[in-house]
C-alpha cells in the first residue's frame, strides 16, 4: 500500500516538475550567471567579466529612461485604472435604482467593458496604431483636421507618445477591474448600505464610508496585479511605437530593452544584467505590496 502510494506521488510529479525545472528554473538560474559574462551567443563558453555589465548599465541613459518609464507606469497605470474602474463599479452596483441588484443594463455594461480584456495585447497595439494615425485617416486626428486644427502626433511626438501608451494600457485594463470590483461590491451585505442610508448617507458618503473600506482588500489585489503588469509592459511598446520604443526612446521600457539587446544586438550578457535589475524591481515591488497590504481583514 505505502509503496504504491509513493510510486503514485512520484509518477504524478515527475513530468510537471521536469518541465518546470527545465524550462523555468534552469533558465532563471542561468540568467543570473550570464549577467556576469560577456556572452554574445557565438563563443562556446561565456567569459566571466564580474560586474562589468552592471557598471556599464549605470551609465546607460536609454536603460534608465526605460526604468523611469516603467516606474511612471507603475504609479499611474494602477492609479488611473483603479479610480476609473471603482467609479464605474460603484455606478453599476450601488448607484441608480437603490442598489438592489445593480442598475438597469448593468449586465450589458459589464459585458462590453470587458471586451478589451479578451483581445490579444499585440492586436490591441495594432488597433491603436491605426486609431492614433497622424493624418486625416486617424480616428482621433480626423475631427481635429476637419476643424482646421493641427493634428496631434500621438505616437510621433516625444512629449505625447508615452501618454498615448498609458491611455491604451488603461483602456484595456479597466473592464476587468470593473467586473472584479462589482463582484466585491455584490458581496457586501445590503443591510450595510441600507443602514447608512437611514442614517442619512448620500451617494458620495455611501461610496467613501461604506463601499471603499469594505472593498479595500480587493483594491489591493488589483494594485499588485496592475503593478506587476506595469513592470511587464512589452507588446504595446514593441508593436505600436516607431523604432520600437521611440520616437527617440521616449516610450521604451525595460522589457523592450532586454529584448532588443538580446535578440537584435546579441548582447546576451548585457541583456541578462538588465533582466536581473528587472527581477529585483519586481521582487521588491511584490514584497513592498505584501507588506503594505497586511491589514486586518473585515469579515462580514
Amino acid at each position, binding site marked *: 500500500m505505502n509503496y504504491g502510494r509513493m510510486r503514485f506521488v512520484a509518477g*504524478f510529479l515527475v*513530468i*510537471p516538475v521536469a518541465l518546470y525545472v527545465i524550462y523555468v528554473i534552469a533558465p*532563471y538560474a542561468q540568467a543570473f550567471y550570464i549577467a556576469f559574462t560577456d556572452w554574445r551567443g557565438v563563443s562556446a563558453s561565456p567569459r566571466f567579466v564580474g560586474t562589468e555589465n552592471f557598471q556599464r548599465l549605470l551609465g546607460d541613459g536609454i536603460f534608465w529612461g526605460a526604468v523611469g518609464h516603467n516606474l511612471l507606469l507603475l504609479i499611474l497605470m494602477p492609479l488611473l485604472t483603479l479610480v476609473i474602474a471603482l467609479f464605474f463599479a460603484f455606478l453599476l452596483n450601488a448607484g441608480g435604482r437603490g442598489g438592489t441588484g445593480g442598475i438597469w443594463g448593468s449586465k450589458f455594461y459589464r459585458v462590453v467593458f470587458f471586451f478589451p480584456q479578451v*483581445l490579444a495585447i499585440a492586436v490591441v497595439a495594432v488597433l491603436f496604431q491605426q486609431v492614433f494615425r497622424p493624418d486625416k485617416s486617424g480616428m482621433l486626428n480626423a475631427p481635429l483636421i476637419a476643424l482646421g486644427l493641427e493634428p496631434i502626433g500621438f505616437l510621433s511626438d516625444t512629449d505625447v507618445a508615452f501618454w498615448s501608451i498609458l491611455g491604451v494600457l488603461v483602456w484595456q485594463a479597466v473592464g476587468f477591474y470593473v*467586473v472584479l470590483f462589482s463582484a466585491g461590491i455584490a458581496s457586501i451585505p445590503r443591510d450595510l448600505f441600507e443602514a447608512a442610508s437611514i442614517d442619512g448617507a448620500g451617494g458620495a458618503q455611501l461610496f467613501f464610508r461604506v463601499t471603499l473600506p469594505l472593498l479595500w482588500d480587493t483594491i489591493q489585489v488589483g494594485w499588485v496585479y496592475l503593478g506587476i503588469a506595469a513592470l511587464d509592459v512589452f507588446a504595446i511598446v514593441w508593436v505600436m511605437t516607431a523604432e520600437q520604443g521611440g520616437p527617440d526612446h521616449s516610450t521604451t521600457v525595460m522589457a523592450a530593452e532586454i529584448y532588443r539587446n538580446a535578440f537584435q544586438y546579441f548582447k546576451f550578457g548585457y541583456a541578462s544584467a538588465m533582466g536581473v535589475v528587472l527581477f529585483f524591481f519586481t521582487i521588491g515591488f511584490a514584497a513592498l505590496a505584501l507588506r503594505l497590504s497586511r491589514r486586518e481583514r473585515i469579515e462580514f
Partner: protein
Amino acid sequence: MAISKSRAYAREERRRRLGPLSVLTHTALLIWTVLVAVPIVWTFLASVKSEDEIFGNAWSLPASLRFDNWGRAWEQAHIGQYMVNSIVVVAFSTFGTMLFGSMAAYVLARYRFRGNRAIYLLFVSGLAFPVYLALTPLFFVVQNMGTIPLIGQFIGLNTHGGLVLVYIAYSLPFTVFFLAAFFRTLPGAVAEAAFVDGASHTRVFFQIMLPMAKPGIVSVTVFNVLGQWNQYQLPLVLLTSDRDKWVLTQGIADISTAAGYDADWSALFAALSMAILPMLIVYTLFQSQIQKGLTAGALK
C-alpha cells in the same frame, strides 16, 4: 415589521437622492461603452473599405462592402494559417497545462511526503519571476532540446512542440497554486470510500477528485486559454525564422510593420477583424463563465 418598513424607507430615500443622478450615471457608463466599442466597430468598418477610403476621412462609411479584403488577408497574408497554428498550439498546451498542473496540484495538496512543501514553493515562486529575465537562456534551452536525437526535431526552436512545452511550463505556477488551494477544500470522504472499495490512487484522481474539482478546473482553463492565445513574447523569441509556424499575434504584428512597405491596408484591417471576431464571439457566448473564472483567479 419595523425592520422591513425602515428598509423600504431606506430604499425610497436612496432612490430620492440618487434618482436625478441616474441620467448622469448612464451618461458616464455610455461614454466608456463608446470608448470601448468604437475602435473595434471602426476596425470592422475599415476591413470592408477600399484603399482610397482608408486613406480618406477616418469617419466616412464604406461605399460598398468589400469582402475581398477578408479573402486577401486569409490567403495572401496567411491569417488562416496563423489562426490554425494558434488553435493547435493553444489546444495542446492548455490540455497539457491542465493535465500536468492538476496532477501536481492534487498530489501536493492531498498527500504528505518529504519535500512536498519545497516542491510547492518552487512552483509558486514562479509567480513572481518576470519572464524577460529568462528569455535568453530559455532560447538556448529550447535550441539545445532540438539537438536531442529522435524527438529533438519536434521540440526545438521553430517547432510548435517546443512552444507547447514552454507554454505548459510557464503556466504551471498559477495553475498549481490555484488548483492546490482548490483540491485542499474538497471533502475526503468520497475518496476514502473509493479506496475501501479497492480503487487505485490514479483512478480516484481521474474518476472522483477531478470531476469534483470541475469549477476550479474550468476557471483555470479559461485563464490559460486566454493567456496562451494572447501570448506574443514567447513565440517572438521561439518561432523566429519559419513564418509558416507563426501564431496569430505574430502574424498581426508583422502585417502592421510590413504594411508600411507593402501597403495592403485593407487586408490589415481585415486581418485585425479576423483576430478580434472569434474572441468576441467566444467571449459573448461564455461571458459569465469567463468573468467568473478570471475574477476567481484574481481573488485567490
